[in-house]
């Protein structure tokens, strides 16, 4: 099942995607519905939910801020 990690901006979403690709993790940048994100429009990284522990680990390691995990 796919989940979405919300990102504070598209710029950071692109940065995160590039970092993850270098680690061999493939994600897609998506625009989740504002209804799913309390602060309104945002961007997110969509991937298989089994990858999220790695995704969060690498983003923290790189100091890239992220939001929350929501259903895709």
């Amino acid at each position, binding site marked *: 099942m796919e989940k979405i990690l919300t990102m*504070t*901006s*598209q*710029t*950071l979403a*692109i*940065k995160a995607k590039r970092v993850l690709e270098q680690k061999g993790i493939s994600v897609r*940048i*998506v*625009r989740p519905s*504002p209804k799913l994100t*309390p*602060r*309104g*429009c*945002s*961007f997110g990284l969509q991937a298989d939910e089994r990858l999220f522990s790695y995704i969060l680990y690498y983003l923290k390691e790189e100091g890239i*801020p992220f939001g929350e995990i929501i259903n895709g």
Partner: protein
Amino acid sequence: MIYFDNAATTFPKPTGVMREMMRCMTEYGGNPGRSGHRLSMAAAEAVFHVRESLADFFGIKKAENIVFTQNCTAALNLAIRGIAKRGDHFLISDLEHNSVLRTVAGLCREQGMTYDIFHALENDEMMLAEIEKKCRPYTRAIIATHASNICPRILPIAKIGAFCRRKKLLYIVDAAQSAGLYDINIMRDGISILCAPGHKALYGPQGSGFAAFADDFDFSRFTPSLFGGNGKNSAELTMGNEPPDSFEAGTVATPAIVGLGEGLRFVRIRRRERLEEYENKLYLLAKKRLETIPHVRLYLPEAEKGSLLLLGFDGIAPSKVAERLAEQGICVRAGLHCAPLAHTALGTGGDALRISFSAMNNPAEIETFAHVLQNAI
């Protein structure tokens, strides 16, 4: 035609700049940061790539710390207004362009801040001693040009940056004339915010500029000066303070940004060091040649490094000379150059003629210019 007005904007631009701008407008011209479709994503990827290239070129790791603006003036307004808090004191040099002077003076007039001016034409040691003397306990920042827009004076940014670090001051650098030409490394030189145009020595199009923030810049107290949509957190009333999007309200100029990216590529391919060396060669050649022409006065003739010259004349107004040169197809700029403080410091009397070079000029043009100038005065 001879174009010696490169300090206003470089001309012509490398062909790759036009090509990429055209490609953007025909192949991937979506609105970056707004949608998730292919064209918007492609535009966002292209803009991000330019952020990465600029960050790398100017010595920072965080690509998101490059905030795009429409020009250097907008970048300086963003930087200065963003850091300013009531009660702050600023130090600026007497070579500042109105993009710094008017912004600082306006803030002081409207919001009760204060500023002092230090003399930048003195030698480096005297200038640094004056900066130290004029610092107050509540001085928040030094805001100063890197290279003057009217005379061959280049400020020692690494020394000023080291002083700012020691005193815990912010250091905002106006790199309008130096970005792309002189060596700048934000982290090494202790710069807090570097403000630059894309359309001068970075050879991008007009409409491009940026503020580059140090990797360790604290955005928590930095306030945006432009408000509106940025494609994120749209349900909230505030812009936030996360670079770059919080400080890029409204649609960014994607064609101009990718053009700037190509301009930077041109600088990297030609090598910045070589461009600096080449323009300095043109500068020294022009200085030597102009010194032989009667009734021509050079301002700051002792300077050995530069990319522009400022001239005055005996018996004829510089603006009149510029007009005569324009009739002969020579593009130069006379007047106050939006830098009244600097004109006062140099004692021009409020009018002087500036010639400024780029990588596109050559020594033969200097000889032709000297010949035409001789007949014009």
